[in-house]
């Protein structure tokens, strides 16, 4: 048996994100069971687990797309208090539009494939109420540039772009309003290995430049290892282990995590 860890003593800031005791069932299937998670400001929390472990459901809850049967969710932001799961649709939409960015594995979920790439990014500002064409154009260009999207393809529709480029458009859209929280759902799954590395690198760079708090979900340990500061391992809807990323990969405690890590190495 290992030692039980103390509560934080040096770091006194509150976690930006706190999810507490969430559960969600789909019929007889318990997708998420009594899961709690937190992420400190500027921290990258990685969630690993195989398909069906409930990790994506948890991420969708963090994006308020999915409301659990039980549990609470708070973001430590000005003018925001209480359980976010209890917000009405309108407040939820405004919160998601302005404070939370998300990148989906499937770009079709996050993008209008036939609109221009810059328009996809501009949409986020439009939802937040921006109505000046020049401002929209500039903000979209800047966000795409920060996502290392080639600016000569600014107005190309995502349907004409490669998978890696589509993810960059999603990313630009997600960061356009400088969100407090960036959620990434298998952002590089399905991409070529070399493209995957470039997208990961962009994410890493953005994280360092902007200190965005991120939650990244992936079944790919390499992705988690590259990006995450802290890792949460999920299996069958439950958290089996959490820890610092290097500790999870070098000294996994739970049998399932050991199996996962050894399968990779």
């Amino acid at each position, binding site marked *: 048996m290992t030692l*039980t860890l103390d509560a934080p003593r*040096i770091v006194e800031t509150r976690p930006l994100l706190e999810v507490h005791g969430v559960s969600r069932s789909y019929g007889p299937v318990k997708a998420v069971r009594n899961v709690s998670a937190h992420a400190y400001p500027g921290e990258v929390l990685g969630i690993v687990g195989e398909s069906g472990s409930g990790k994506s459901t948890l991420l969708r809850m963090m994006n308020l797309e999915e409301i659990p049967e039980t549990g609470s969710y708070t973001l430590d932001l000005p003018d925001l208090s209480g359980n976010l799961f209890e917000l009405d649709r309108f407040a939820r939409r405004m919160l998601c539009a302005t404070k939370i960015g998300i990148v989906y594995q499937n770009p079709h979920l996050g993008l209008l494939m036939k609109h221009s790439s810059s328009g996809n990014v501009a949409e986020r500002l439009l939802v937040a109420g921006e109505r000046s064409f020049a401002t929209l154009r500039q903000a979209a260009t800047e966000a795409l540039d920060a996502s290392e999207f080639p600016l000569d393809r600014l107005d190309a529709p995502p349907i004409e772009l490669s998978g890696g480029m589509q993810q960059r458009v999603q990313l630009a859209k997600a960061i356009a309003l400088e969100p407090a929280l960036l959620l990434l759902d298998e952002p590089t799954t399905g991409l070529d290995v070399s493209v995957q590395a470039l997208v990961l*690198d962009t994410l890493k760079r953005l994280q360092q430049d902007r200190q965005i708090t991120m939650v990244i979900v992936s079944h790919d340990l390499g992705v988690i290892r590259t990006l995450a500061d802290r890792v949460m391992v999920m299996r069958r809807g439950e958290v089996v282990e959490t820890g610092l990323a290097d500790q999870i990969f*070098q000294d996994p405690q739970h049998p399932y995590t050991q199996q996962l890590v050894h399968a990779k190495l």
Partner: protein
Amino acid sequence: MTQVLEIDGLTKGFSLHHLEKDIPAFENISFAVAAGEFVLLKGANGAGKSTLLRTLYRSYLPLAGEIRFHSSHGLIDLARAADVDIAHLRRTEIGFVTQFLTARPRVSAEAIVAEPLRLAGWGVEAALKAARTALETFGVKPDLWAAYPTTFSGGEQQKVNLARALILPQKLLMLDEPTASLDANARGALVTRLQELKDQGTAMIGVFHHPDDVMHLIDRIVDLTPNAVPQEERDDVAL
């Protein structure tokens, strides 16, 4: 002397569930390191030298014992500290130098070296300037500074790695065979930098294949060989 680290009864082993087997690494280790002190870990292969370093850095979770660290925030037991506290200390007070560079594609050598400074809140230009100086110290040629270390040879990568790991003065530094694959000049630069840090009060714990390189830095030797005398004064040991 000001104590930096007090290790007390530290025990580590690994439970390999798929083999249903417990593998002990080391048991009941106790020693202390003071500011400006350099402790060499000694022991046969498999005695647990690297394991101990990683346990102190909390890449490994100890099974029992205490790692009392005199941080700038007060005394904290690294064996039980919350992950977020450990992450904070790693950014600010505890360093770890490995044998390998974790290079990332499309990140230049100077950017890699500047990264700890950026994380500590330095401006881009100041951080890059300091990074270039550090690269120069370790003998990386200027035409490589803006290149991507993913394409470098092992030796060059290790120089970048050292420049990065040692750029910020730390309170406690773990060294896991940093001289491996280094040429003589770089070894010299490393020793010079370590001496500098030591003079500034950094406590160091190191594992070296060829301790001759750092001989004059060593204050004390801890032998991890089971049943060895736990602490030996440097002068008493013939290396």
